[in-house]
């Protein structure tokens, strides 16, 4: 799975570079986020702007990764295009992974939750 990382105002942003997060890549996707978690990050922004397609297996991997972040773990999503957001909405997982338009908005939301 092709991921890249940037720090933005002290928050780790994971950019998913692969256009598809599906049953063929879900395992790798989970492992890549697990690797970030293992380095002590508990609050992540996952940037899905390069993702053209995600299925329930990919979404399940994101849930699984969230569990690895521990008690204080949180993941918010930025950059989801309409077709990607549909999956989160239909499954109600948009209640778990809040969707934001920008990193600024996402960072504010994570800070809010941290209080």
């Amino acid at each position, binding site marked *: 799975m092709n991921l890249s990382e940037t720090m933005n105002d002290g928050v780790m942003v994971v950019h998913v570079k692969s256009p*598809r997060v*599906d*049953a*063929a890549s879900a395992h790798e996707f989970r492992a890549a986020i697990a690797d970030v978690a293992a380095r002590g990050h508990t609050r992540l922004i996952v940037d899905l702007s390069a993702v053209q*397609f995600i*299925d*329930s*297996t990919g*979404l*399940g*991997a994101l*849930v*699984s990764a*969230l*569990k690895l972040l521990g008690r204080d*773990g949180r993941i918010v999503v930025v950059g989801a295009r*309409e*077709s990607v957001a*549909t*999956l989160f909405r*239909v*499954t*109600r997982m948009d*209640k*778990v992974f809040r969707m934001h338009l920008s990193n600024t908005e996402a960072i504010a939301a994570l800070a809010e939750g941290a209080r």
Partner: protein
Amino acid sequence: MNGRGANVRLLLRIGSEFACVGPLGAAVRAASAQLGLESEAAAEVELSVVEAVNNSIEHAYRLSGDGVVEVLLEALAPGVRIEVRDRGHAMSCGVLERAGPLEFDAAHVPSLPEGGMGLFIVKQLMDEVHYETSGSLNVLTMVRLGSRAGRSR
């Protein structure tokens, strides 16, 4: 409009391997758009077909990798009718009908589901869904009539 006639059909076939589902899904989305579906509707057809095909690979063929999954795409006016066919273990009676929204507490992470969403997604996104087994052939049929605007959802 070219390509939207009632007899326009395309059959797609893959081996039961997850690596083949990406190209299949992309092909189904593009062909659905070509048959007149709007872009978001075509994306929802892709997602539904991928969920159904993943189920055939995982549940019908139990990840054995030596099965065949076929997708038949047929033009409606307007919309598409899709069959996902496998010759593996059939889905038990009533499973499709019972598939409902996942019940979970979004604030309680350890209890969040990591699966069990596929059939519900398909039912939410498609206008009609049914499943039939005859002999060794299992067929999940889905109908998507058009864009959200034209639908009663």
